[in-house]
């Protein structure tokens, strides 16, 4: 499992980067990048996102 970013909703504010304990989020110019190989599924980014742009990625 991992998370999925809705780039249309994302405001690029970096809030998810601030709370990610494992550096699995990075704010590049105008884009949030998620590194699933680092992600530990703690869900902090999902909760903190002011606009609800991050969701759990359902398992296939």
């Amino acid at each position, binding site marked *: 499992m991992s998370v999925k970013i809705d780039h249309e909703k994302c405001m690029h504010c*970096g*809030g998810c980067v601030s709370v990610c304990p494992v550096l699995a989020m990075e704010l590049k*110019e105008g884009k949030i990048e998620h590194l699933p190989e680092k992600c530990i599924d703690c869900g902090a980014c999902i909760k*903190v996102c002011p606009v609800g742009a991050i969701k759990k990625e359902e398992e296939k």
Partner: protein
Amino acid sequence: MNYDKKWDVIVVGAGPGGSKTAEEFAKRGAKTLVVEKKQQIGPPKRCGEGLSQRWMEIANLDPDPTWTLQKITGTVLVAPNGEEAWIDTEDKDQAGYIIERSKFEKDLASDAIRAGSKFMLKARAADLVKENGKIAGVKVVREGKPITLKSDIVVGADGVDSMIARKAGLNSTLPLSECDSGYQYEMTGVDLKDPHKMELYFGSEAANRGYVWIFPKGSDIANVGVGITGEDEKTAKHYLDRWMKHNQERFKNASITEINSGVVPVTSPIDQMVSHGLMLVGDSARMVNPMHGGGIGPALEAGIMAAEIGVPALEKGAEKQFLQPYQEKWEEKRGKNFKKILKVRHFFEKLSDKHLNLIAENADPDVLLNLGHRKSLSKIAKTLLKSSPQSIGFVKDYITK
């Protein structure tokens, strides 16, 4: 421009803290470079744009009509039941301005440039250069191309989501319970109670553990925003849209000109804000007033302190022991007070809507004016006890801690 030479200082981030730091280092003769990942200094803001007169004095800034847009002479606190407490701050040190942050930030950068500092935009700090256990520069990606920039000191002024702090191994991950998730509209056509008063709305309906704010930028222009605990399952946007719907009369002639979001640290400052060749300034070190989340002033002040300690340290090699006095100075002058204010905040976080109503109805305006001060805790508690003796158990728990 040849950026390849060795710099005395590289500042990462051209926000208020970064530009002020650069100006202060350059003014003292240090070769200073600022790297900024965006293609322009300023927008998008993650901020309500309030700045008090007192902070401007600390940072040696005079009011400037191009960015001190609206003079603020007080605050209207609104309790969950609608009870209003009007606080006048006109002649007190809480007086200040709602600023146009984009212009303000560019002016600060201009001040730094005139002091001798250089800026490099569209340059993202991807990693730190480390040599012999010391931080010795920054690896940036500029317009897609990697460049290694060397310096004796790196200053991380790259915000609450600081990559510099993280890459340096400083414990900067913000716990969800210690941050506010914020969302804001800048709007024109807003029906303001008073265009020179900030409006703050409290209560679980408006904002879980936070408040809704209306900060006027003109007679009918305002930042309308909300901050809620990072732990809330609902989004800040959800809270703001719902509150605006319940207060739609105020916004019937209004439309949005800007949408902002961001996360604010409302906690103690970071344990360690220096390392070998490294200093943190501003939100990256959580230098924020934990009562209201204001961080521009503390970042400006820290930028001055960083240069005061950093410039003499350059001659000695910028090892950690020569930079440590920066942290000590900051903690003495500001951090200690912020830790006390955090206790007031923790008390406030536990207040129920009923408590908030009682405080708005019964508190002396002078007590409300000084909410951000440690001393206000006992005064608020007294107000609460007077109007509701049954709250003694609750008050005791927090006052004695």
